[in-house]
């Protein structure tokens, strides 16, 4: 009996792990493709091509106070929902943000879930993090410098998964 239960628990763990892998592997088919623009770094640390990891600021990280609907975030790291809409250049821009749940209507909209960081009084801007500010292995997409403005193409999957599939220079 004990033996049977034990194998059952092991199988359950194996199932959980394989289920997650299976779900996350599907992102190439089921993920929603989103192109977003980065802001060029104000203070480049060094002026050379980036070899490995790159930390970027996207324009969707800064959300002006007039984009927020009635519910503003309060706590550091609390969850916020950001509704993006495609513009003419096929780049997604912030349309609406809220601490309450938002729904995407139609193909040219997408909802991202981020965490609220802080409010900048001078610029009247709320900073929101999404988790993909750090891009691993940038050099596989080409040579970029910290001062470049980039367009990053992401696949947004279930449960907060994302995958960077392309990086290109803005106005190329």
């Amino acid at each position, binding site marked *: 009996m004990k033996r049977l239960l034990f194998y059952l628990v092991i199988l359950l763990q194996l199932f959980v792990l394989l289920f997650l892998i299976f779900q*996350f592997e599907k992102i190439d088919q089921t993920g929603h493709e989103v192109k977003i623009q980065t802001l060029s770094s104000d203070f480049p640390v060094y002026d050379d091509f980036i070899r490995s990891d790159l930390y970027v600021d996207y324009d969707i990280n800064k959300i002006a106070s007039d984009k927020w609907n009635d519910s503003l975030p309060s706590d550091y790291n609390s969850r916020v929902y950001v509704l993006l809409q495609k513009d003419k250049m096929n780049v997604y821009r912030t349309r609406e943000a809220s601490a309450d749940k938002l729904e995407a209507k139609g193909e040219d909209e997408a909802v991202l879930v981020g965490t609220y960081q802080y409010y900048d009084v001078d610029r009247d801007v709320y900073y929101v993090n999404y988790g993909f500010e750090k891009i691993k292995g940038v050099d596989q997409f080409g040579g970029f410098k910290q001062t470049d403005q980039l367009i990053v193409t992401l696949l947004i999957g279930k449960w907060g998964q994302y995958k960077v599939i392309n990086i290109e220079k803005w106005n190329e």
Partner: protein
Amino acid sequence: MNKEKLRKEGKNWVKDGIITDQQLEAILNKYVKKDQSYLLILFSVLLIGIGVLIFIFSDWAQVPHFSRLSIMIFCMLTFYIVGHYFAKRSTTQEEDSQRRSHIYGMSFIILGYIFFGATLFLILNVYQVHYLNVWPFIIWSIVGLLLYSIYENPTLFVLALLITIFTQIYSAFAFSTYSSIAFLIFSLGYFYFVFHRSNPVFNYIFAIGLSIQLVIHTVIEAPEYYWMIFFFLLMYTLAHIIPKPHLRQSLIYISLLSIFIFKIYESFLLQESYFLEDMHIQVSFFVIISICLFGAFVYKRRTNPSELIDLLLFLPLFYLPFSFLFVILSMFVFSVYWLVVGFQRKLEDKIIIGIMSFIISTFTAYIQFAWETLNKSLFFLLGGILLFLISFILERKRRTTEIEKGGHTK
């Protein structure tokens, strides 16, 4: 009892003619020297576990992700199956090697459990999942509970319990949220085993964990800081209805310790003018705390009136003028009461509560009044001497009572 100590004592008994030499030998033979080798195995398991976790989160050099995951899953399954094999063998052997097999088996199962968590986080890392609540930790915690219900190994339980407590702490720091699911697993699942196993280590870790959960709940969910008093009072009161004496004791001690630490913190906060201006006084709080205090008062008066002083600590004082003085005063009244009553009635555990709380109160008061006025080196010097004197005097007093008490029983 320690075998060496027993041998020493035993020789005196032989001299006094209480027992014969043969009887002493027979008694000593009953005490087999405890085999400490399991500690070595335990540490090796811990070190391997920590090593794996750190290794997982470093980026493995250029190893493609699929093979990384397969290696981890393969290791996990191997550990579980080998562990299970050893544990099964332990039932078919003679005593000594049985225990050894059992220890090996459990170590491998614990390693398997650590590998499960590591693989879970590796998956999230490989597939770049930005999780916004603590669901991976919750899965890990539930698996720990399931494993423990099959193989009741204390180390496994402590590990899983610590993971559950950490889940709540992580939820607070990383997402500023209070995870009710983590609390439910903790207070239902883990409490079930803590309640039935009566293990002192489980009891204290559980009590400390509960206190931490209450603090996080107040900080994140409660409108004002002083609701903390209510939650600690609730913990203190509910502890009394638990029928297991050891678990009850640990919950009461930890709730008293928690409210004491809270009072130290409060005595500093209540001197800040910005803090007092921001504070709103809620009527609902007073209604609820009065009901709870009254209930606890009635219950205590019927069962154990000498412990009524405990409730003084839970009395809200923040609305009074110069409230921090009252807070410190209440701490002193509590500790002096237990010092006096403890020494009078020769209650060893109450004397320790009295000594500890007196030292903490003195130091709190000392910091309040001397930090800004004294030169810093003088501050620490005097503080050290003060604490030394207090502990010296109180410890001497305690020893004399102990000797007196020993004299009485002889």
